[in-house]
């Protein structure tokens, strides 16, 4: 029997279509269809200059916006050979780690809904609202920040930022513990996610999976450690690694990553010193001719930008390597012997964002 888990479905995390061939309750074959959100961002990038493109990159991974902006700005800075001042890097790191916590809180809430629990989404979004309100105070917008620019950040932090962030980290610590207690060791949740949708390390590497999907399978790989960018080598943080590669591992790694991000934020706030927040760069950046490939660790994995420039004020080609694009390919492997009821749980555990899958 063929079942169409169509583009409109409460659990498809956006417009994703999954066509399943079933034998009773078992999935015999799964065929994912994407492209229902293909907006042509890469082609539009060739028509806009470097500051306008940041608004497009905001909307690619629309839950971890700052990470997308950061990857693009790092690619342009690498081509230009720019030295970004320290304070700008501290601001960028603090905001990106806060964005990681916000993204994982969204995942936590929506994953609870996928497994059938109605309460975690309210708790997750309560914590996310705290972070998003702080973003509004710093960058001016709740979601599409347009804050990280080529050479630094757009403007300096507000004066009461340090008090606000310290208060926020205390609240988030309590919030993460509360969310953890609610779902992680709940019997029903364990029954639905333990041993479900497992993928082993070599297969995950073959598919090009990155981020929590790869780390859950036992491979210790984090871009902040293997190819450190910015000032991540000044922070001490752990990298959670799973052992089974199943849905529970992928979920719990994200909860642990939230705690590690909090510790990075505390260290960054202590180490940050006043200084310039933008390098000396022209208003419209003109990188020299060449190509640059830059990777960053987004909440979903390895978000990379391949920028080809011909010396003008608009790029020649921008290719976005989205982590969810590669992670989603592995769903055919994860669904190989699953029940139809597990399809939703497995899809939710990969944590895809269709904006970056389809670009």
């Amino acid at each position, binding site marked *: 029997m063929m079942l169409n888990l169509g583009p*409109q479905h409460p659990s498809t995390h956006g417009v994703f279509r999954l066509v399943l061939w079933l034998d009773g309750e078992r999935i015999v074959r799964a065929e994912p269809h994407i492209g229902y959100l*293909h907006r*042509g*961002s890469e082609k*539009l990038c060739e028509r806009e200059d470097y500051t306008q493109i940041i608004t497009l990159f905001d*909307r690619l991974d629309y839950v971890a916006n700052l990470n997308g902006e950061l990857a693009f700005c790092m690619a342009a800075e690498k081509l230009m050979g720019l030295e970004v001042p320290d304070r700008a890097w501290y601001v960028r790191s603090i905001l990106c780690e806060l964005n990681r916590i916000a993204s994982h809180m969204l995942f936590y809430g929506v994953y609870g809904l996928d497994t059938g629990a109605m309460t975690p*989404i309210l708790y997750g979004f*309560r914590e996310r609202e705290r972070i998003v309100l702080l973003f509004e105070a710093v960058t001016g917008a709740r979601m599409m920040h347009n804050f990280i620019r080529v050479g630094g950040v757009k403007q300096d932090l507000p004066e009461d930022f340090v008090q606000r962030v310290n208060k926020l980290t205390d609240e988030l610590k309590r919030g993460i513990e509360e969310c953890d207690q609610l779902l992680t060791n709940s019997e029903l949740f364990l029954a639905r996610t333990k041993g479900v949708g497992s993928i082993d390390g070599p297969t995950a590497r073959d598919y090009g999976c990155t981020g929590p999907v790869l780390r859950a399978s036992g491979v210790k790989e984090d871009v902040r450690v293997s190819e450190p960018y910015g000032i991540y080598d000044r922070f001490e943080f752990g990298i959670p690694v799973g052992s089974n590669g199943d849905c529970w591992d992928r979920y719990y790694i994200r909860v642990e990553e939230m705690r590690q991000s909090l510790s990075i934020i505390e260290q960054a706030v202590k180490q940050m010193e006043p200084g310039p927040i933008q390098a000396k760069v022209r208003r419209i950046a003109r990188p020299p001719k060449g190509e640059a490939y830059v990777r960053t660790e987004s909440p979903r994995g390895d978000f990379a930008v391949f920028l080809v420039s011909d010396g003008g004020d608009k790029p020649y080609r921008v290719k976005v390597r989205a982590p969810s694009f590669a992670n989603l390919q592995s769903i055919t492997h994860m669904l190989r012997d699953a029940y139809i009821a597990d399809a939703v749980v497995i899809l939710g555990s990969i944590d895809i964002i269709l*904006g970056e899958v389809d670009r």
Partner: protein
Amino acid sequence: MSGNVPAEAPFERVLPNAVVCKSNELFALARKSSLWTLSFGLACCAIEMIGAHMSHHDLDRFGVVTWPSPRQSDVMIVAGTVVKKMADPIKRLYEQMPDPKWVIAMGSCATNGGPYYRSYSVVMGVDHLIPVDVYVPGCPPRPEALMFGIMELQKKITEDAKRRGLPPPRLISPPSAPTDGASPR
């Protein structure tokens, strides 16, 4: 009794606590107080739509519940960019919704294409496909903006019911009125 007091209606002696109203206004009150939205988040605006339903900006107090099935929902909030590949499913979903139904175009992508204006694969606004009742601008609109949009839709439902579904009165007469002596203007 003194002054201009109307006489007591006969049924007021029988049913002292009855309320009199027109039936379409009563139905409009019922419909606007329990708008079930089709959960149709396409892109980034979906995150703000979910945030509007959550406890910080609660939409449940308006009676708005998000419901996955189109057969049982009243409002379709098109939140996000409409891509040409998605146009067919959107039309099909709209046709599956039973009357009376309304559409809220949330965000600038659903209004006119937004930041993806002039892209080769984007429909410049969902009103090319389905009739839209309320446009909520923003990229993405704040949850408060979406709440305002829903409140405007509620106002529209009551106004439409008062006019009994007829179009609103025109304030400016059309310029092409014939004046060949048939009817004096």
